[in-house]
């Protein structure tokens, strides 16, 4: 098993692999270790209270897809997750978003349950029969207390934020159109505007830029960066284009053979 895996790995990756194999209980089969690893313990002593900590995290549905992730996401980071399809990028992101339970290990952060996490799924998750404005307003809704009755209109400050987010992504002129008639690029802008109007602490975006053309990509990136800097959010992206990921992100996570490896990380 070891040799078969080694064929696909470079030196850097092997180091990470060794760590798991050393913890594999001596019987040669990989087993998820439930105790937090030493590296994570060291990190735990110096965490920023605003950060997201992944300790000994294994994600997957029935069987694990990615093993033993020990990482800290610091506020203001921009992280791109790379890896071939079906390898568990989306599963990892959904686990961080709190939509599925980790198989083992834990995710800890002190973000509010309401409005703390912004998640843009691969299929965008827009309400197709609602207008652009009400979709974007959905994000702003999470900024007021959950005890507000749902029929209460947003107050002026939140309404302004909705307008600003739409203006930044250049969808203000189609604000009253139903989402279902928009093009793919426009829908992606709506999804991003919704998350920006939400002002979350961390934005998890699955295929953030999708298959947009160069021109759209640039304008969306500038608009997003502006607001993200303003609200000081963390950005975690899944990207297929490697060069785009390197250009966008300041940390690159790569998933190779069930391991998450950070590029340029001397710990590994």
């Amino acid at each position, binding site marked *: 098993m070891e040799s078969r895996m080694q064929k696909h790995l470079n030196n850097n990756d092997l180091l990470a692999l060794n760590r798991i194999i050393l913890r594999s209980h001596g019987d040669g089969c990989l087993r998820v270790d439930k105790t937090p690893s030493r590296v994570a313990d060291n990190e735990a002593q110096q965490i920023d209270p605003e950060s997201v900590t992944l300790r000994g995290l294994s994600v997957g549905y029935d069987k694990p897809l990615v093993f033993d992730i020990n990482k800290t996401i610091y506020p203001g980071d921009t992280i791109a997750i790379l890896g071939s399809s079906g390898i568990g990028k989306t599963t990892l992101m*959904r686990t961080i*978003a*709190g*939509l599925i339970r980790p198989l083992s290990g834990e995710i800890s952060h002190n973000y*509010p*349950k*309401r*409005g*703390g*996490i*912004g*998640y*843009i*799924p*691969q*299929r*965008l*998750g*827009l*309400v*197709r*029969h*609602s207008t652009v404005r*009400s979709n974007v307003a*959905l*994000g702003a*809704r*999470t900024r007021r207390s*959950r005890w507000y*009755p*749902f*029929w209460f209109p947003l107050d002026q400050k939140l309404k302004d934020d909705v307008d600003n987010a739409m203006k930044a992504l250049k969808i203000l002129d189609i604000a009253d159109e139903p989402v*279902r*008639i928009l093009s793919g690029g426009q829908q992606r802008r709506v999804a991003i505007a919704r998350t920006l109007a*939400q002002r*979350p602490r961390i934005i*998890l975006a699955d295929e953030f830029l999708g298959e947009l053309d160069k021109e759209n990509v640039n304008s969306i990136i500038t608009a997003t960066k502006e607001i993200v800097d303003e609200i000081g959010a963390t950005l975690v992206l899944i990207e297929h284009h490697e060069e785009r990921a390197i250009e966008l992100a300041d940390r690159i996570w790569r998933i190779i053979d069930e391991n998450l490896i950070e590029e340029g990380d001397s710990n590994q």
Partner: protein
Amino acid sequence: MILINKKLFFLGISLIVLAWLSLDDLVDDWGQIEGAPEKLQTFFSESLFPPDWSVLEAEVWADGSLHKPNGDVCNENLELFCSKAWTGMVVTIKMAFVATLIGFFFSIPIASLAANNMAPLPIAMPARVLLAGLRSLPSIIWALLFAIALGFGPLPGILAMTLYTIGYLGKLQYEAMEGVHNAPLESGLAMGLTHSEQLFHVVIPESSNHLLSQLLFMFEYNVRHGAVLGLVGAGGIGMYIDNYINPPFDYNKAFALLIVVFVVVVIIDLISMLIRSFVTEEGDVKRPKWWSVILPPSMAVEMYSKKEEE
């Protein structure tokens, strides 16, 4: 040779065989069929036909004045408005309208608790059991119970229709809600939207087409059932039908009233089509007109392509 999935083919065949076996098991005496068409024909020609359209006229009293079925003097411009068919239908439609609307307001929240993509199983199961309970008593039994408690009249009919509407519409609604795409719900969940926000800002807009068509279907269903509920004295057109199919029998008038119910149902269906055209996505797609089927294909294609250019 027709290419068909082998498994599907055998499944279909075995289902048909099973249905036939069940039917054969249930029916003891196939001789019943003998002479059935003739009997029906006799019933139709002697009792039902022709429909007695006097139900569309006001009652004429001994002094020659026109009266409504409840005894009031007819002051309407048109005699039809004082007839049994009209007044009964108006009462039935009012009953169905009120019952459907109240039922809808109660069924939406219950259905949202019963939909398994919106609520966990420990909450969804009781909600489903509640809906099934309301649904398992037919509206006529509900009407009977309320008629015992409240006496005759439209009120027990409305209550019966309302309860049945909650059970029946709730079932249709939670199935429509479960058909909503997962992605909007998931991003809403990650964002931290509450259950009611998810329901009113995500699920209802997403399933609006289904919810609306089910609502209109339920209205139509309640109008049709108004004809049945009359049998237990719940008022409306059903009460008059009930009068005519009991001694002294007057099937011709009952038949005329049933035709009125049929016409109203068709009208409601047309209105429902019109209303739904505002929320379906069909408006976004150009479709050929119905009359293009009678044109020769070449002409139809030409016309259709010309329309697209516009």
